[in-house]
């Protein structure tokens, strides 16, 4: 029997299952217990697991991040709840100077099996400090794994894998997708890291899209399909580790590629993936690899402005069409 769950509920289930399986798993963050987070994602967990395992903290992100690092090093598996991805800036030192480097600096003797659950995504009218998609920043730091679920199904499977990983993993959920549903099996499943998902096969162009942009790429593929253009959509699922092979094999087949991501375009995810494609599939490319990230502007509050900062299906389709038709996107 298939059943549909919201992304929010899928995350909740993943946590509950892992907490039942492993007593050392616990949740720590702001308003995670009775309130179940502002997004109500964790509702019911404190009732089952108690406040010792679903721990409300003061508003002290660097502090509870640091505590989680120490707890992880000494034998537990904390799942840190960071209410908004924008607060990553507050925990960067503990995350990047401590958690990310401890295993390496100790010559492999200390482990930091920790998950940082947070979110990304604009267009919620939350303005510049509550709308950022900062996954590129953590992907740049060696020692951190970075997962970007694109559906309820992915969110559950990737989170369970993250919790079992012996390394610090940062997992970004899309705030806009919490109420989106997908088929989620009753049976337990895990989604391995570093294995991209070919969401849709195609011949003419490869659309590599992450997180929130997978839906956008699929919608673009629909638009293109109606025009007779066959787009392959690839969701890397984790950007660290990155499944380069699946992406490169696709591009070798289609000869054209675009990379779509909701982080700011410059110095971010699109540059990394696009340059790997250009570097390693160069002789197969019939057209430049086009990148579409969020605009390089702080996220504006005004809805009319905010909406145009993020790639849209139409925008993706327009560029893809040009590439397939051999038209120039940027001039020669």
């Amino acid at each position, binding site marked *: 029997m298939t059943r549909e769950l919201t992304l929010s509920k899928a995350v909740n289930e993943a946590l509950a299952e892992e907490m039942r399986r492993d007593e050392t798993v616990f949740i720590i963050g702001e308003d995670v217990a009775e*309130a179940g987070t502002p997004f109500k994602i964790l509702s019911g967990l404190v009732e089952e697991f108690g406040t010792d395992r679903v721990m409300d903290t003061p508003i*002290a992100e660097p502090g509870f991040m640091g505590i989680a690092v120490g707890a992880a090093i000494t034998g537990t598996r904390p799942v840190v709840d960071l209410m908004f991805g924008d607060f990553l800036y507050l925990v960067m030192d503990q995350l990047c100077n401590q958690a990310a480097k401890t295993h390496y600096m100790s010559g492999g003797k200390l482990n930091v099996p920790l998950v940082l659950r947070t979110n990304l995504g604009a267009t919620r009218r939350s303005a510049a400090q509550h709308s950022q998609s900062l996954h590129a920043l953590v992907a740049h730091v060696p020692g951190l794994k970075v997962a970007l679920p694109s559906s309820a199904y992915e969110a559950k499977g990737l989170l369970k894998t993250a919790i079992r990983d012996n390394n610090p993993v940062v997992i970004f959920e899309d705030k806009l997708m919490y109420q989106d549903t997908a088929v989620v099996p009753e049976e337990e499943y895990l989604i391995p890291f570093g294995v991209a998902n070919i969401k849709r096969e195609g011949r003419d162009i490869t659309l590599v899209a992450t997180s929130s942009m997978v839906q956008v790429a699929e919608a673009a593929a629909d638009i293109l399909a109606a025009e007779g253009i066959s787009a392959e959509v690839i969701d890397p699922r984790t950007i660290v580790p990155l499944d380069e092979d699946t992406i490169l094999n696709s591009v070798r087949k289609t000869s054209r590629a675009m990379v779509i991501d909701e982080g700011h375009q410059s110095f971010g995810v699109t540059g990394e993936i696009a340059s790997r494609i250009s570097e390693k599939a160069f002789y197969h490319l019939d057209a430049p690899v086009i990148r579409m990230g969020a605009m390089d502007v702080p996220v504006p509050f005004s*809805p009319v402005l905010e909406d145009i900062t993020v790639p849209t299906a139409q925008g993706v389709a327009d560029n893809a069409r040009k590439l397939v038709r051999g038209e120039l996107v940027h001039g020669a």
Partner: protein
Amino acid sequence: MPKITKPNNDDYIRMYTQMVRIRAFEDNANQLYLSAKMPGLTHMYTGQEAVAVGICEALEDRDKITSTHRGHGHCVAKGADFKQMFCELLGKEEGYCRGKGGSMHIADQSHGNLGANAIVGGSMGIATGAALTAKKLGKDDVAVCFFGDGATAQGLWYEVMNMAALWHLPVIYACENNGYSEYTKTDEIAAGSLTSRAEAFGIEAFQVDGQDVLAVNKLTQQLVARCRNGEGPFFIELETYRYHGHHVGDINREYYRSRDEEAAWREKRDPITNFGNWLLKEGVAEDTELSEIRNAINADAEAAVAYALDAHYPDLSEVDMHVFAANSG
């Protein structure tokens, strides 16, 4: 002891007026949310009016404040105009920030409001830096940093208190202790005592009833005068209460606080009602005068809302304007 002006009747009326303006602003903002006309969420200041007004009435335009996610009250109290505020809340070009900031980033530089902030505690350094500027430029301006009880958990506060104390900066840290941070009681997230935390850095600390606008104003006047005199920094903990939920969408909140508790504050400790009664009792104003004030303000607020609803959005070309400030030459 520096000279402090005793409030006169005009001052009393202005304080009353400003508190009513805040309440009217928030009631209208809440209505905009409920009628789905406002983009996003917002955090109501209702109930805390005496804090913002008591403090800001002790300041001049040249004095700076930094504000919070719950910032409409500070903005109004520091002298902002309804139209530009509602325009901002609705993302319109005529807003204080051309619609780019919204409720959580509203700022009003001409009145010294350096802005609301969506990072809890995020403005503690900014206010302290504003005080440093005053000292550097040889001005006697004062900076007030508003923040909530929840924000006292942020390490940043201790870092900047240390420097403010070492450098004798003219900054007042004003903690609006409304008993909750989001859905959690203050007692559950704050060990020890807040005033002791400031005192440990050698900072004089005060507690005051944040529902009593005169008490707040009197204390602030003294501390502002002492700041101007080089005796800063100071810390004030103001006991207060928010009537609404954490934000406009926080409707079912009995799991973290009771209706009885809410009713008790509204009925017994409302800053506007109580101050109104005092004005009547002291013969500062007649009942009719007060209701005229309220009516005029309500009409003003409604007109401003109507204006803002009609106002236009920024042009799409604005999207990548103001990422960087221009350099002359």
